[in-house]
């Protein structure tokens, strides 16, 4: 075990997979000699050369299209979006091509493709460098979507994504790159896609979250613990497929559910979780299903305004208190 950052964990995962499997390669804007906008691919160009670390034009539809083509002929591409905000430029390639090819060919064709998408706010990036577009892809059949929060999960999920024979959108939170540090095994390991993890156990309330929101959620759970309320904190890690059993199991135990995410409120992952819990675990509820999310608006460039919009520990504690007293 060693302590590394979230960004290092991502870099290690790519490096180890490229060493392990020659069909794995990376492509994206400035991922080569420059090492990527966030230095995620730093050192890969030197180690594997320009044939396996491809600089591309500033054209996301081209990046995704090339990656799909390569995947169809047996490669395992890792396509880097410089910011998740620009993934929409490659949207058609993702939702109409990558997501449908297996279905269209009756299962004869696989698209073992990973799209890495640096997402999330709180970095004062304004409205084109802060978005959380994960719900669009969760909505679309044929895609897997993951969003890890810890270095351990970041590495294990990226490796699992690379080895998966389906297109996986890998959302990595920019705010965690250097801030999240944690133990990571020296051995080769993967974290299964579609499995949530209980990051803190409690019996009174269930808090479901993912990605960077895990940390204010854990802090809020700690605060509640001092007030005698024990919170079960579930880190989804994967959004599609989503680990429903983990959610239901916890709700059956606590009967009260709060969902926290940095994505917008309307039609976010929280909306789907609330709906499914209402449908399938209604008999176990002892209070309304609640959400703390980013409001349905853009990311302001002004730091105080962005701070006002983002979910944080205080907002989560407020919601937990209300839910506990219900």
């Amino acid at each position: 075990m060693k302590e590394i950052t979230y960004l290092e964990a991502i870099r290690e995962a790519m490096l180890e997979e490229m060493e392990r499997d020659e069909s794995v390669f990376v492509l994206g804007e400035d991922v080569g000699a420059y090492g990527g906008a966030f230095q995620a691919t730093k050192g890969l160009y030197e180690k594997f050369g320009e044939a396996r670390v491809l600089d591309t034009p500033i054209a996301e539809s081209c990046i995704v299209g090339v990656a799909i083509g390569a995947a169809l002929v047996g490669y395992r591409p890792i396509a880097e979006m410089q910011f998740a905000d620009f993934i929409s430029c490659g949207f058609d390639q993702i939702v109409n091509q990558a997501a449908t090819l297996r279905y269209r060919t009756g299962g004869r064709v696989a698209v073992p493709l990973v799209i890495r998408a640096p997402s999330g706010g709180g970095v004062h990036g304004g409205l084109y460098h802060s978005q959380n577009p994960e719900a669009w892809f969760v909505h679309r059949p044929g895609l897997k979507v993951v969003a890890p929060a810890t270095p351990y999960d970041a590495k294990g999920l990226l490796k699992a994504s690379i080895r998966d024979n389906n297109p996986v959108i890998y959302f990595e939170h920019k705010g965690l790159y250097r801030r999240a540090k944690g133990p990571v095994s020296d051995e080769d390991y993967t974290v299964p896609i579609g499995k949530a993890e209980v990051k803190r156990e409690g019996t009174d309330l269930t808090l479901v979250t993912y990605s960077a929101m895990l940390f204010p959620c854990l802090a809020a759970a700690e605060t509640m613990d001092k007030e005698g309320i024990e919170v079960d904190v579930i880190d989804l890690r994967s959004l599609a497929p989503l680990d429903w059993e983990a959610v239901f199991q916890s709700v059956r135990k606590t009967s009260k559910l709060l969902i926290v995410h940095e994505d917008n409120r309307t039609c976010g992952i929280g909306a789907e979780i609330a709906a499914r819990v209402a449908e399938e675990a209604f008999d176990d509820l002892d209070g309304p299903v609640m959400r703390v999310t980013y409001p349905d608006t853009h990311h302001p460039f002004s730091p105080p305004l962005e701070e006002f919009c983002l979910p944080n520990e205080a907002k989560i504690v407020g919601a937990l208190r209300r839910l506990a007293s219900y």
Partner: protein
Amino acid sequence: MEVKIVVPHMGESIVEGTILKWLKRPGDRVERDESVVEIGSDKIDVEVPAPARGTLKEILAQEGATVAVGKAVALLETEDAAPARPKTEAPPEPEAAEEGEAKEAKQEETTPRGRRRITPVVAKLAERHGVDLDQIEGTGLGGRVTKKDVLPYLEGRRSTQEAPEPKRKEEALPTPTPRRAAVPSEEEPVEVIPVTAMRKAIAEHLVRSKQTAPHVTTVAEVDMTRLVNFREKHKADFERQEGISLTYMPFIVMACIRTLKEFPFLNGSMEEERILLKRYYHIGVAVALEEGLVVPVIRHADRLDIRGLAHAIHDLAERARTKKLTSDDLKGGTFSITNPGAFGAVLSTPIINYPQAAILGVEAIRKTPVVRDDQIAIRHMMYLCLSYDHRIVDGATAVQFNQRVRRILENPLELIL
């Protein structure tokens, strides 16, 4: 200032009230809390007090009128500008969400217990363990009983039920506390079956009948031998001609209709202090299904002959079994017949299909030794058990009715006329 006087909330499930008597007339002065009107419902009568001091301005609903709960029945012109409120009480309730707790807590004090908010998990626990939620003090918002309130209560109940009393070991055997409801355990496994809408409707209907109509059952002993012989003789032909089997039911239905015409009160009902005598004959015939009993109705059964009745009964039973009955098939019966004899019952006390006045239970036909001309003979005997609403039908009438049906069945030729 004008204030409305409304029909007050009188309890769960009461949705309207009837104006019984106006105690004040328009133009009368009334004090605050002085009774203005008497309003009745099927469960309770109340006197409605004036919400403020003033003059009764206008009556909006006359005596005898039925008005929904919450709707205005009169207008009151108050003397002071502000609506009546005790001076000590705070001004208008805050509407902000943050004040929700205080507001709900206040409502809790004033609303009847039956209207408390119960969440799904609490409802489930209460049902599964037979808990009366009124016994539990709620700690949730506005005094709501939460899951966390129910679980320790169940825990406490279990320990008082199961823990032996340690100190009295030598004195006497511990007396077990009677259980309030079955608590499932490995030793005493209990299967919990959710009540279906149909089962609930049956339950409510039967309870209503038993609670409203004082039931009396009279029994007639019928010698069915002639009818048995008649049926034996004709059943093969009948089946060939009609494609359905010949049962006793058409004869019994026809005998009942003949007799109902002579004793109209048994084809009546009591509704709102009036007795309604139905001059038409919609006869309900009970059909037992796996999921519960239904009583489809033969409309204008008096217009059918034996063959017509046989087909109508067969059709209803068939459609009941294949779930093809419409709600119209189940409505509007004036008298019902049930046939527990089909399952071997020899005596029953049927429950009236309320608001009908009576129901006839048809029992099993058995060969029985009876006395005929001072000799013991073997005859096909059957009991007819007539339950009737004693508010509408006196004992003498009911017994005469049942005996008349008996005589017709014993002399089936009477059915021809």
